[in-house]
């Protein structure tokens, strides 16, 4: 059987996955706190091809070959999104640029040192409580208030304070200002609210360990030592009355979707060429 037929088929499937990822990015062009994802592909494991048998052929290894490609992971790009002003008191945005000793991060939040080690920039997130009590993390600060005064995400999950409890306020949010460190102040008195509630901001050292859950939320799947509360010297600020826009680049997405489509087409053509080779083998060899 022709080996390349399946290689091309796997190429079509991998390109379709890439297309799906870009489509999802395009769909979320206006979703606050959305982080773009990029589909990473990887070659199938290499195998060694050997010649064997025959009198005229020297037997022994010919070389290595890959027999296809697959979409391995959807890596999130955690670059800071632009801020857009909304003037709603419950709209909060995180501006995060956390420094790591000796690392100079590029726009995608990655640094490769001279030994080839990759360091990803830590990112700060709001901490919310999912339905099963698990803590999840979000950059979507379009919050609202529940009937009992609990601060909720747009889809209704409680936002946690530093004490690990949901933030509950009885008054109007018009009278509350949020400090850069997440402390809630009374606008009239210019002092922290009773009980000094403060938003819990969690820093994730390796944001690649976050798994997207939908509704702007992420679950942390890495080592528990890799997350920590916000420290005073971290370069993280909370801005009230702003939302962080999606960090999807529309022009880049259009290029990616076209390239995925055309690569898909190229693989389809390869399959057609294999098909015509097979057709020759089946119908024309030995034809009188």
């Amino acid at each position, binding site marked *: 059987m022709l080996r390349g037929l399946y290689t091309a088929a796997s190429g079509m499937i991998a390109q379709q996955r890439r297309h799906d990822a870009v*489509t999802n990015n*395009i*769909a979320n062009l206006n979703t606050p706190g959305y982080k773009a994802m990029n589909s990473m592909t990887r070659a199938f494991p290499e195998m060694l091809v050997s010649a064997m048998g025959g009198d005229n052929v020297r037997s022994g290894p010919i070389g290595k070959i890959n027999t296809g490609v697959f979409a391995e992971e959807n890596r999130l790009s955690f670059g800071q999104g632009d801020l857009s002003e909304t003037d709603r008191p419950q709209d909060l945005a995180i501006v995060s640029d956390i420094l790591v000793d000796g690392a100079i991060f590029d726009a995608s939040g990655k640094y490769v040192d001279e030994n080839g080690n990759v360091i990803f920039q830590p990112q700060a997130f709001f901490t919310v409580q999912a339905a099963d009590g698990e803590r999840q993390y979000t950059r979507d600060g379009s919050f609202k208030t529940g009937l009992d005064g609990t601060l909720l995400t747009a889809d209704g999950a409680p936002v946690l304070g530093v004490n690990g409890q949901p933030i509950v306020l009885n008054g109007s949010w018009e009278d509350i200002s949020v400090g850069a460190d997440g402390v809630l102040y009374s606008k009239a008195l210019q002092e922290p609210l009773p009980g000094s509630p403060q938003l819990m901001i969690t820093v994730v050292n390796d944001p690649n360990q976050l*798994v997207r859950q939908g509704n702007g939320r992420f679950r942390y799947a890495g080592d528990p030592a890799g997350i920590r509360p916000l420290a005073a010297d971290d370069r993280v600020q909370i801005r009230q009355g702003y939302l962080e826009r999606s960090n999807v680049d529309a022009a880049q997405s259009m290029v990616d979707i076209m390239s995925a489509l055309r690569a898909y087409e190229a693989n389809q053509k390869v399959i057609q060429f294999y098909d015509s080779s097979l057709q020759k083998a089946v119908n024309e060899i030995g034809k009188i």
Partner: protein
Amino acid sequence: MNNSMIASAASISAIQRKLDMLADNVANINTVGYKRKTSTFGDLLTSLMPHETDFNLPGRATPPGYTQGWGVRLASMMLDMTQGTLQSTGNPNDVAIEGNALFQVRMPDGTDAYTRHGAFQLIALPSGDRQLVTDEGLAVLNRDGGDIIVPEGRNLTITPEGNLIAVGIEGTEPIELGQIQLVQVLKPELLRSVGDNLYGMDAGVNPDAVVQQLPVRPVGVSVRQGFTEQSNVNLADEMAELINVQRSYQLNARALASANEMLGMANNLRG
């Protein structure tokens, strides 16, 4: 159907809803006391295709599993209660609120509703007295939840605190009619638009948790007689948003077309 097609189709309908909302705002640019609606998107459920642990190869940065997103939805729609500009009309029945407050009116079915639409009128009752109602004919309530009746031959004056005074011809003593009901909105996201520029609440929601009666001497709120509050829709903002949303609609439609082309290619594998 392939995943891209599902994701873009779902997103197109969400964006359509946002367009509808923007159209509603633009249509009400001249509606007295109209408060613009805002909405935010949220990404739809992400499913995780599990991976065997053998997939954890060197160079991989994320935990095992391949995530697949399914587009976007309109996560929430809210009212933007910011102040609209006041316009002088000279009509004593036009009342505008400056600050965070709403008038309370009684619906025909006896339930309460709230509004900033202060284009009121005085209708004559069979007794010769006149009652303060909205331009839709709904009774405007006083602080005690009763109707506001202006005795025959007198005109209504409203002080900045919302006190109602019936003033007669010179030489007669003004009559105090109490105070117009003003409520402060604590949780604007729980107010529902019930048409005619009125806001109500969902069944089962305790009104006290959403709105609160203002004190007799309100701070930061004043009532202006002879003014109407213009809509707080800013056409430039709405148009900018409209362009943005329309372009993302277009982009999603292109993703859909592209997904369709892929399906066509798969169908035509065998010429």
